[in-house]
C-alpha cells in the first residue's frame, strides 16, 4: 500500500522509510507515515543542521536556558528574558499577509508558552528589488500582516531591518523575533511530568489548514507553488490575545506541569515532544479534539497546523480550575488524552487505535545527516573604478534615498511600537531600547542580517554579522547577554549550499566564542530556493543586551550645538559588498571587509565605557552604509547640521562610504581621548547643513532638511502615491 509516490508526497526517502519499518517492526499505516513525515521533516528535526549546530557555544554567565526549549532564556536585572527568532519564509511567499501574521502568532506562542509576557517583536525582512511590482505587493502584504497580528496582541514591534536582494524575489525572508519577561522561578517548559496526567487542549478548534506546512518548508518551490495556498494557516490575533491572557493566568496559579504550543506538526509534535522529554508516553483521544470542519480524518487531526492552540499537562486534579480560567476568557479547553507509562505515542479514534509508535522515534530519533559539502568560492573582487572620486554630496543623496537606506518610517508607523510603554528609543535608529518597569536597568535588542556579506564570503559574513549585532548594542552602552539566530539557506542536499551552511556556522562559532556569548536557540530555514535558484546565505542574529543604568542612555535629543563628533576605530580599504557599490554601480558583490575581533572588542568596550561614564550624547555604528550616510541619518534625528574636517589617509571612498567593521562615531560635548582605540575629532554639530572638508577642500555641502526629505519620502512615494 505504501509506494514510492506516497513516500514522495510525504517527502520521505527510501532509507528513511526502511528505518521507520525497522523501528516499528512492521509497515506503518498511513497515519503513522504522516507522523514520521512531519516529525522527520527538516523543519521539525533539523536533520541536516544538527551536527553542525552542536558546535556553537551554549554556555554563558547570564544563561538560564539554552537551545532545546521553545525559547532561550537569559537573566537581566533579576528577571528572566525569554527570546527566540523564527522564520516564516515559505508561507509568506505563498500568502504574504497570512504568512507573516501567523509567523508573528507562532513566535509569540513560543514566548508565552515559557511563562513570559511578550514585551517586544522585531522583524528581519528581505525582499526582491522594489522596482518589481510583485515584490512591492509581497512587502506590502508582509508589513500589513505583521501589523495586523502584532498590533491587536498589544505587543510592540519595536525594531528590525528590511533589505533587498534580487534572489529574494521568489524567496522572501520573514524572520520574526519575540522577547518576553518572566520571573526567574516561574519559567515553564515542555514537560509531561509523570504517567496518568491529563493532556488539555485549549484554543481554536482544529481545521484542515496547514496540514504538512512543516513538510512544505522542507522542500524547494517549483513553478506550481501557487497550489500550496491550502498549506498556509490563517491567523486570528483576537483568539491569540485571549489565549495569552488565559495561559499566563493558568501559569500564575500554578495549575500545569508542562506546556507546548501546537505549531508545526500541531498536536503530534507538541504531545510527543513533551512526553519524550519526560520519559513517558501519551495516549490521545482524537474524538475529544475540537474540530472546525466535519469529516476530518485522524491523519488530518494529528497533522493540522491550525493556529492559536496550546497543549498542557495538568497538575493532578486541576483540570476543572484550568477549564474555568479558559472559559472566563471565552476559550474552549478539553481533555484530549493522558500521559502513560509505556513510552509510546498512541492515538485512538472511534474506539480504534489509529497510530501506535515509540514516542522517542518521533521526537528524538529522526535521522541526522552529515551531508556532503564543498567549500564556497570567495568573492575577492576589487575594481579600481570603484575607488574614483565623485561628487560625494550627490552620492549621499542617492544612497540615503535608495531602498537600502531610506527611512523605514512608512513601515514602523504601521506597527504599534509604543504599547506597554517601555519603548525608550523609538524605532529608526540603532537598536531598540526598552525599560523594565521599576528597575534602573534596561534591555537593548537588535536583529541583524547581511546577505551581501554571506553571498561573497559565508564564513566571514557570519563573523561580521555577529560583530555588527554586538556593535549595535554597544552604541547604547549595552553588553550582549545571549543571541538567538535564524539561518536561512537554499537546498542543503546540494553540496555547495551545505558548504555555505557549514562555513556560516563556523563563522558564528568563531565570533561567539571570542565574545563569550552563548546561542540560546534559534531556527534553521532550508530550501529557500525556487526553480534551482537559492537565496544567498542569510544569518539573522538576534541579540539581547543589558544596559545597567538607563539614566545615562545616549540619544539624539541630548545632542547640542557645538558638540564634538569623534570617529573611533580602524578605517580599512573596504568597499566590496557595500551599499555604495549597489547604489552607484549596481554591483552586489566584491571583497567582504576583514575584521580583527580583538580590535572590534576593544572598540565596543571603549564605547560602552564612555557611555557608562556619561561622556556620550549620542553614538552610532557605521556599517552598513559607511560614515557619511550614517552620520546624515543621525543628523536627521538630531535635527541639526554638522561641519566635518577630515584628513583621510586612504581613498576618500573608503573613508566616507566604506564598510570597515570596527568603526563608530560618538558625539560629545567633552574632549575625549583613548589609549586603546584610534580616535579622531572629525567635526562638530553646527548649523543646519552637512558640510565636509577633506584636507581643507570642500567636498560635501548639503542642507540637512532637504536630505531628510528625500530620505523620508522614498517608501511613501512608492506605496502611497
Amino acid at each position: 500500500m505504501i509506494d514510492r509516490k506516497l513516500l514522495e508526497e510525504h517527502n520521505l526517502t527510501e532509507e528513511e522509510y526502511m528505518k521507520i519499518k525497522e523501528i516499528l517492526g512492521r509497515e506503518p499505516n498511513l497515519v503513522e507515515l504522516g507522523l514520521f513525515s512531519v516529525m522527520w521533516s527538516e523543519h521539525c528535526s533539523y536533520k541536516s543542521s544538527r551536527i553542525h549546530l552542536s558546535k556553537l557555544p551554549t554556555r554563558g554567565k547570564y544563561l538560564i536556558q539554552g537551545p532545546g526549549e521553545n525559547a532561550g532564556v537569559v537573566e537581566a536585572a533579576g528577571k528572566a528574558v525569554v527570546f527566540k527568532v523564527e522564520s516564516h519564509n515559505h508561507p509568506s511567499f505563498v500568502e504574504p499577509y497570512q504568512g507573516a501574521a501567523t509567523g508573528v502568532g507562532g513566535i509569540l506562542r513560543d514566548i508565552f508558552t515559557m511563562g513570559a509576557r511578550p514585551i517586544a517583536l522585531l522583524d528581519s525582512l528581505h525582499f526582491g528589488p522594489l522596482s518589481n511590482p510583485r515584490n512591492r505587493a509581497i512587502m506590502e502584504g508582509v508589513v500589513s500582516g505583521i501589523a495586523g497580528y502584532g498590533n491587536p496582541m498589544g505587543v510592540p514591534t519595536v525594531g528590525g531591518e528590511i533589505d533587498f536582494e534580487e534572489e529574494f524575489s521568489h524567496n522572501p525572508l520573514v524572520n520574526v523575533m519575540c522577547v518576553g519577561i518572566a520571573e526567574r522561578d516561574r519559567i515553564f517548559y515542555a514537560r509531561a511530568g509523570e504517567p496518568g496526567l491529563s493532556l488539555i487542549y485549549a484554543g481554536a478548534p482544529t481545521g484542515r489548514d496547514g496540514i504538512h506546512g512543516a513538510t512544505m518548508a522542507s522542500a524547494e518551490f517549483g513553478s506550481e507553488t501557487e497550489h500550496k495556498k491550502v498549506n498556509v494557516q490563517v491567523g486570528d490575533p483576537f483568539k491569540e490575545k485571549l489565549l495569552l491572557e488565559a495561559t499566563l493566568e493558568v501559569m500564575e496559579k500554578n495549575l500545569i506541569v508542562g506546556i507546548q504550543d501546537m505549531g508545526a506538526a500541531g498536536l503530534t509534535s507538541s504531545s510527543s515532544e513533551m512526553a519524550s522529554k519526560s520519559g513517558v508516553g501519551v495516549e490521545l483521544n482524537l474524538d475529544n479534539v475540537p474540530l472546525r470542519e466535519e469529516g476530518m480524518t485522524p491523519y488530518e487531526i494529528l497533522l493540522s497546523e491550525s493556529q492559536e492552540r496550546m497543549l498542557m499537562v495538568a497538575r493532578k486534579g486541576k483540570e476543572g480550575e484550568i477549564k474555568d480560567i479558559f472559559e472566563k476568557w471565552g476559550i474552549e479547553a478539553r481533555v484530549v488524552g493522558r500521559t502513560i507509562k509505556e513510552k509510546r505515542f498512541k492515538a485512538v479514534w472511534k474506539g480504534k487505535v489509529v497510530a501506535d509508535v515509540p514516542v522517542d522515534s518521533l521526537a528524538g530519533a529522526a535521522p541526522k545527516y552529515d551531508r556532503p559539502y564543498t567549500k564556497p568560492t570567495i568573492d575577492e573582487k576589487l575594481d579600481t573604478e570603484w575607488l574614483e572620486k565623485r561628487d560625494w554630496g550627490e552620492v549621499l543623496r542617492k544612497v540615503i534615498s535608495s531602498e537600502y537606506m531610506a527611512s523605514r518610517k512608512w513601515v514602523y508607523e504601521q506597527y504599534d511600537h509604543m504599547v506597554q510603554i517601555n519603548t525608550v528609543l523609538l524605532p529608526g535608529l540603532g537598536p531598540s531600547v526598552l525599560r523594565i518597569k521599576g528597575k534602573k536597568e534596561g534591555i537593548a535588542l537588535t536583529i541583524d542580517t547581511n546577505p551581501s556579506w554571506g553571498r561573497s564570503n559565508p564564513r566571514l559574513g557570519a563573523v561580521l554579522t555577529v560583530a555588527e549585532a554586538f556593535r549595535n548594542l554597544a552604541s547604547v552602552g549595552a553588553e550582549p547577554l545571549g543571541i538567538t539566530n535564524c539561518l536561512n539557506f537554499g537546498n542543503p542536499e546540494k553540496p555547495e549550499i551545505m558548504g555555505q551552511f557549514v562555513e556560516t556556522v563556523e563563522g558564528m562559532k568563531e565570533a561567539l566564542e571570542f565574545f563569550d556569548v552563548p546561542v540560546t536557540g534559534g531556527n534553521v530555514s532550508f530550501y529557500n530556493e525556487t526553480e534551482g535558484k537559492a537565496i544567498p546565505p542569510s544569518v539573522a542574529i538576534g541579540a539581547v543586551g543589558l544596559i545597567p543604568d538607563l539614566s545615562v542612555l545616549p540619544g539624539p535629543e541630548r545632542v547640542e550645538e557645538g558638540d564634538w563628533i569623534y570617529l573611533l576605530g580602524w578605517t580599512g580599504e573596504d568597499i566590496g559588498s557595500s551599499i555604495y557599490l549597489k547604489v552607484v554601480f549596481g554591483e552586489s558583490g566584491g571583497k567582504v571587509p576583514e575584521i580583527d575581533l580583538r580590535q572590534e572588542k576593544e572598540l565596543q568596550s571603549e564605547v560602552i565605557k564612555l557611555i557608562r561614564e556619561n561622556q556620550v550624547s549620542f553614538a552610532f555604528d557605521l556599517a552598513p552604509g559607511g560614515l557619511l550616510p550614517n552620520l546624515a541619518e543621525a543628523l536627521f534625528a538630531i535635527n541639526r547640521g554638522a561641519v566635518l574636517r577630515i584628513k583621510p589617509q586612504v581613498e576618500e571612498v573608503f573613508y566616507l562610504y566604506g564598510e570597515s567593521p570596527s568603526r563608530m562615531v560618538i558625539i560629545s560635548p567633552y574632549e575625549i581621548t583613548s589609549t586603546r582605540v584610534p580616535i579622531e575629532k572629525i567635526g562638530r554639530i553646527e548649523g543646519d547643513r552637512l558640510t565636509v572638508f577633506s584636507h581643507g577642500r570642500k567636498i560635501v555641502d548639503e542642507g540637512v532638511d532637504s536630505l531628510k526629505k528625500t530620505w523620508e519620502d522614498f517608501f511613501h512615494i512608492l506605496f502611497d502615491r
Partner: protein
Amino acid sequence: MGNRKVKFGVVVYPGTNCDRDTYHAIKEVAGEDARYLWHRDTDLKGSQVIVLPGGFSYGDYLRSGAIARFSPIMEAIKDFAEAGGLVLGICNGFQILLEAGLLPGAMLRNKGLRFICRFVDLVVENDETPFTLLYKKGERLRIPIAHIDGNFFAEPEVIAEMERDRRIVLRYVHNPNGSIHDTAGIINSMGNVMGLMPHPERASESIVGSTDGLRMFLSAAKYVRES
C-alpha cells in the same frame, strides 16, 4: 476630602490591550487608586472615574467598538455617566463610547487607510473640562496615537454645535487621519464623558518621551477630589 486617592476603574474587554498601561499610569505615576473592571461585571466597585482603555475589544470584528457596547458593564457605565460620573474613553475606548451613544459622531478608517503609530502635536482647545483643568487653553501637547480607525466624523450641524459649545477639547496640529475639524478629543454636552484618540497613558513619563498626558488623569482626580 484632603488628599484621599481617587478610585479609577479601568475596564477590560476581551481584546483590550492598553489596560495594564492605563492602570500603570494612574496608579504608579499619577499615584491615584486603580482597579480593573471586567466586561461581565455589572458593578463599578465604587469607581469615581471610569476609563475605557485602548485595544481591540472583541477583536474589533464588525466595527471598532461595535460589540463592546453590548457588554454587561456598559449598562452600569451608562447609568454612572447619566448621574454625572466621569468617563474617559481612550482610542478604542473612545470608539466604544461613540458606538454606545455616549458621545456623538462616528469613526471612519484613517484617510491613508493604514494604521498609524507616532507622536503627534495637539492643541488644548478647552481647559475647563474635568479632564483638562490642569492644562492651559492653547497649550501644545505631544502625545502618541496608534490606530487605524481614528478619522472622526459627525454631521455638520453636530460639529457646529460642538464648536459653539467648545466641546472639541483637543485638536491635531497636523491632522494625521482626516478627522473633521482636526478633532482629536471631544466631550459630551453634560461635560463629564470625554473621548480621545491619542494615548495619554503613553505620555506620562519622561523616559518614554513625554509627560504631557499625565495631567489628564491628574485633572480628573483633582476634579473628583474637589467636587
